[in-house]
């Protein structure tokens, strides 16, 4: 079976799962719903694996297969910036190349594990079918995003995952906080989407197409022909516009504020969407548009700086958070910062590599925390946990593995990917020592707060509420098996990306055709030399620094949270004046509220007032006028019009009343009158005539 031609089925299976569960789920048994949902994703994974296997059998230069289904729309000719005419024709097609291959494997593989986990985790919830319907819809959107062959397909997926994020964050819609968080996520995302749309429009205007392959070709040709130059303003603009979109979706400064609030959703949602897949869409998009960024080094610098600062900022907040999921959320923001740091210094493959390993251990950590929450009967505050390692051993062991991975312990996946990023930040021609220093600091902070989480939860004295203590039990197999699988992945996934001094990265090599550097006239000479600039020793030294920093973080955490049990006062004291700022997320949300949110709400309220007072007032006023004038016209009708009629009747009655007396009924009266008449006649004849 030619999987390559069937790649359009990969998003379709979850779409069908969504339709079935969405339309009929209410009346289906829970087992059936879970099987359909997870089964759909499993099918997608199988097809993805098959397609990738077949892709790999092709020659590296030819590893790109487009499957076009039909022409979606065609609005005819449009003028491009270069002065030529181009046809704005958008196709509904799917592109499988190394980059999208990595993405679909990560998305479907981890997606499948999380679906299985959810069957156990969400078992007692109402709206079970709704959850899986939305989850499948999300899978469809995400797969469209990464598998689409042009920017507009990606945009559809982009919006779709935003929608599903909203639906799933607000899954517990009875809680106001959940609804608010969902709204916040959607609105902040929207700000980013605006940037993305402008970027896509500018791309079309510049090169006359939105298909990934065509745009890459045209940019390539433009560079060769001398039309496009490095630091061309148009490319800087496009790159920055696209990055605004990425900042929204992937939670970078200043649009990261929705991600911590998104923890209101169920834990599997946090794992899938806000750790492993949706938030990585920005990274994917920037990687896909690498040829544009190569033409805009200024933009790349912005990306790197924003990424580094975000990593630092988020890590600082994560040091003191007490909700287990919040710590992981800020950790995600921080790790995403790492990925953008990598992209910003030109190490696109490293960024994608970290995306993949991060997906494994972050999903693992989130699912593990979900297991802890499940055992603790929905208690999420770490201050009420402690010494759980004997009670939920499987969860403990897998989370321990995840923590080791994220801290960058050697031989685990996190070490390889994080180390690659730090090395590139230090040594790449777009990199800088300061960026590297920030990265190293963040690595230390990461190690520290992750081990803090581990020790507070599983070690020390038990601060567990007595009545919850009796209910603590290990999670069912449907939850623990995915944890184990992910743990294995967290350990082994790094081995495809070994650094140069250990044999070279298979991963990077695999992705090379996608990230082909543009043939800049002067860069040809530099490029060949640049890679060899730095010695192997320097690289090993940098790696050693990262490991050392991770160990320092572990030691500090151990001394504060493991040897001595956690005490609130001690923690407050150790941060001194910084503590309130860190605990309250540097008051960024309050700042945004004052600057934007309250102003928007005020505008909305005044619009409402206008509508209800003036517009509705007009309507009510016209109604009142009608009623009053109706009274007047009814008076007129009753007294004047009817009066006229009654007057006539009255006149007739009055006149006829005496006249009727003439009709006495007595014939002799009539005869008398006749005689009187005769008298009158005779009198007239005798005396009247002249």
């Amino acid at each position, binding site marked *: 079976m030619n999987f390559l031609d069937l790649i359009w089925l990969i998003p379709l299976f979850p779409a069908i799962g969504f339709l079935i569960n969405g339309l009929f789920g209410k009346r289906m048994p829970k087992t059936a719903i879970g099987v359909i949902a997870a089964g759909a994703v499993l099918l997608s994974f199988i097809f993805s694996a098959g397609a990738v296997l077949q892709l790999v059998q092709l020659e590296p230069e030819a590893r790109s297969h487009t499957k076009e289904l039909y022409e979606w729309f065609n609005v005819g000719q449009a003028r491009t910036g270069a002065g030529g005419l181009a046809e704005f024709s958008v196709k509904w097609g799917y592109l499988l190349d190394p980059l999208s291959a990595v993405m679909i494997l990560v998305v479907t593989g981890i997606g499948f594990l999380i679906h299985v986990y959810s069957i156990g985790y969400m078992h007692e919830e109402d709206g079970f079918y709704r959850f899986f319907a939305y989850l499948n819809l999300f899978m469809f959107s995400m797969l469209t995003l990464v598998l689409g062959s042009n920017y507009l397909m990606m945009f559809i997926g982009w919006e779709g995952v935003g929608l599903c994020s909203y639906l799933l964050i607000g899954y517990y819609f009875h809680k106001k906080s959940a609804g608010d968080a969902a709204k916040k996520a959607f609105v902040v995302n929207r700000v980013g989407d605006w940037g993305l749309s402008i970027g896509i429009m500018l791309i079309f205007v510049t090169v006359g197409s939105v298909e990934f392959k065509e745009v890459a070709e045209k940019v390539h040709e433009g560079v060769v022909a001398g039309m496009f130059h490095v630091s061309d303003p148009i490319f800087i603009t496009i790159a920055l516009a696209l990055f605004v979109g990425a900042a929204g979706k992937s939670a970078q400064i200043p649009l990261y504020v929705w991600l911590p609030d998104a923890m209101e959703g169920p834990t599997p949602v946090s794992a899938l969407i806000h750790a492993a897949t949706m938030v990585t869409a920005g990274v994917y998009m920037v990687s896909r548009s690498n040829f544009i960024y190569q033409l805009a080094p200024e933009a790349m610098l912005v990306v790197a700086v924003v990424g580094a600062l975000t990593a630092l900022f988020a890590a600082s907040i994560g040091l003191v958070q007490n909700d287990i999921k919040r710590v992981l959320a800020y950790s995600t923001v921080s790790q995403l910062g790492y990925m953008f740091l990598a992209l910003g210094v030109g190490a696109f493959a490293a960024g994608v590599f970290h995306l993949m390993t991060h997906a494994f251990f972050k999903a693992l950590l989130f699912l593990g925390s979900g297991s802890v929450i499940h055992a603790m009967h929905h208690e999420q505050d770490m201050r009420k946990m402690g010494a759980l390692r004997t009670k939920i051993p499987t969860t403990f062991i897998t989370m321990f593995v995840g923590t080791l991975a994220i801290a960058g312990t050697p031989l685990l996946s996190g070490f390889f990917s994080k180390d690659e990023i730090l090395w590139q930040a230090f040594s790449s021609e777009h990199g800088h020592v300061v960026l590297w220093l920030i990265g190293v600091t963040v690595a230390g902070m990461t190690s520290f707060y992750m081990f803090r989480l581990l020790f507070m939860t599983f070690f020390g004295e038990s601060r567990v509420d007595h009545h919850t203590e009796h209910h603590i039990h290990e999670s069912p197999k449907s939850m623990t098996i995915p944890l184990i699988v992910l743990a294995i992945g967290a350990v082994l996934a790094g081995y495809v990306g070994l650094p140069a001094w250990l044999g070279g990265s298979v991963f990077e090599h695999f992705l090379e055709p996608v990230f082909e550097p543009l043939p800049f006239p002067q860069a040809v000479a530099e490029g060949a030399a640049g890679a060899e600039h730095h010695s192997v020793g320097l690289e090993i030294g940098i790696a050693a620094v990262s490991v050392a920093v991770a160990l320092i973080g572990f030691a500090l955490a151990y001394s504060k949270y493991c040897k001595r049990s956690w005490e609130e006062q001690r923690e407050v004291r150790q941060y001194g004046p910084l503590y309130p700022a860190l605990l309250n997320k540097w008051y960024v949300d309050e700042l945004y509220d004052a600057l934007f949110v309250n102003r928007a709400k005020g505008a909305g309220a005044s619009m409402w007032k206008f509508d209800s007072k003036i517009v509705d007032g007009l309507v009510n006023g016209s109604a009142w006028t009608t009623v009053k004038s109706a009274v007047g016209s009814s008076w007129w009708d009753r007294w004047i019009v009817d009066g006229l009629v009654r007057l006539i009747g009255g006149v007739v009655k009055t006149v006829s009343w005496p006249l*009727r*007396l*003439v*009709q*006495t*009924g*007595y*014939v*002799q009266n009539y*005869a*008398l009158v006749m*005689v009187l008449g005769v008298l009158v006649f005779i009198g007239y004849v005798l005396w009247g005539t002249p």
Partner: protein
Amino acid sequence: MVTTFHYLMLSAALFTIGVIGVLTRRNIMVILMSIELMMNAVNINLIAFGDRLQQVTGQVFAIFVITVAAAEAAVGLGIVIAMFKNKETMNINEIDLMKW
């Protein structure tokens, strides 16, 4: 000498008496008889003039008057009988169905 004037005065007297009878009496039969009186007064008038003018026209006219009087008396009495079947009264005042 008996002039026409005498006859006319007689006729006028008889006519007036007839009128009084019609207007005054309540009994239907008397009213009808008063009408006959009036007719006779007219006949006297006609014949007096006929005699004056030495023509026979007056008499012929008087014959016709008698004829009509006879017809009218017959029909009138028929009506009286029909009415009597309804109400059993000779009092004309009790026939007042046309009253307002």
